[in-house]
């Protein structure tokens, strides 16, 4: 494996989809270079793209779901977390009706994921309380 290599990829931040090269040095993500010749970004990036390598290894990132019970917060498995969320959503919808819950999706998700949230909100739960960080 090469000590220094660049990996072409797409910036995760917004819907523009600028091309960038992730610099991998000694097995670690150390930086970003703009992807020259990319049809969308043509070798240019915004500040979010230039710093998008910083969050990957950040110690503040969640490594697993966390559930808070009272004052204590503990790491749990994904299955348990999803189970809790689904159960509680269902309980609220059963007790107070579909419009008592809302859904928020994100530009950091793919279009397909945003579509699925829309389906979940409208077809499964039966509400149109859905919004997007870019007001999509």
């Amino acid at each position, binding site marked *: 494996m*090469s*000590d*220094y*290599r*660049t990996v*072409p990829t797409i910036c995760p931040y917004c819907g523009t989809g600028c091309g960038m*090269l992730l610099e991998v*040095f*000694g097995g670690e993500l*150390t930086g970003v*270079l*703009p*992807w*020259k*010749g*990319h049809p969308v970004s043509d*070798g*240019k*990036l*915004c*500040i979010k*793209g*230039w710093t998008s390598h910083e969050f990957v290894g950040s110690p503040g990132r969640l490594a697993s779901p966390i559930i808070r019970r009272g004052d204590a917060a503990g790491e749990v498995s994904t299955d348990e977390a999803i189970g809790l969320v689904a159960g509680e959503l269902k309980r609220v919808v059963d007790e107070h009706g579909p419009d008592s819950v809302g859904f928020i999706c994100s530009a950091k998700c793919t279009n397909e994921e945003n579509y699925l949230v829309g389906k979940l909100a409208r077809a499964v739960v039966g509400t149109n309380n859905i919004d997007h960080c870019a007001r999509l």
Partner: protein
Amino acid sequence: MAIKDRARDIIGKEVDGVLAFRPEGGSHVPHLFNADDIDQMAGEYPAGERYPVSSIVRRLQAARPGVRLAVVVRGCDERALIELEKQGQVDMEHLVLLGLACDGELAGTCGCAQPYPSEVVQGEKVEGGLDLGMVEKLEGLPPGERLDYWLSRFAACVKCFGCRNVCPLCYCKECALDEPGLVDHGEQPPLLPVFHLIRAVDMAGRCVDCGLCEEACPIGIPLRTLYRKVGEVVESHFEYRPGRSPDKKSPLSVLGTEEDVT
């Protein structure tokens, strides 16, 4: 393919790694080759895919002291390396330069003074000529119009810091552009024109006219024009051009002698 042949000859012998380009999905991206993957090295170097290889060399050498590297360099890359060595950032002793001459079209659009390195392994040398057309045109304008010209360009800056991030000669760990006393955080456009003038004066005695800054600017601010003017200023007052001599240091990096100031 002359550079690739030379690289194959020296890998594992004179050098441990070759910093060159790997073809990927139609693009050519920077990659450090060793003896195992040297055959995947690209043999062609499209003009539209220039990267700050001298910055990568600097970081590689800093993290792996004593490593022997070869690197594909154009004229501007070699100028940057020469200047970086004088500033103590790069070690040319452990570096083999694989010189690439820029073709006529690139030399024409890029407009730098010397579109080829001192030793060319691949490519036909084409004479360049420092393109000062825009500088001279601006000098012909009255000062009020010139200021309007510059501020209207600077006003669209989105503070991506691309110009600084991609510059081979920008390596300060604490950058003046991040200093809250000089440039307010969170303002867009940044304070005009001090944001761009800070870079401009820092380029005095450093800028080797590679043009990566203007290529990285999403707005297309004419940075090269500004930095070329700074280069002219430094040459006219100090008879100094960054990247030419491996010995003569930038006069703005040393106190100098009394002759310099009288």
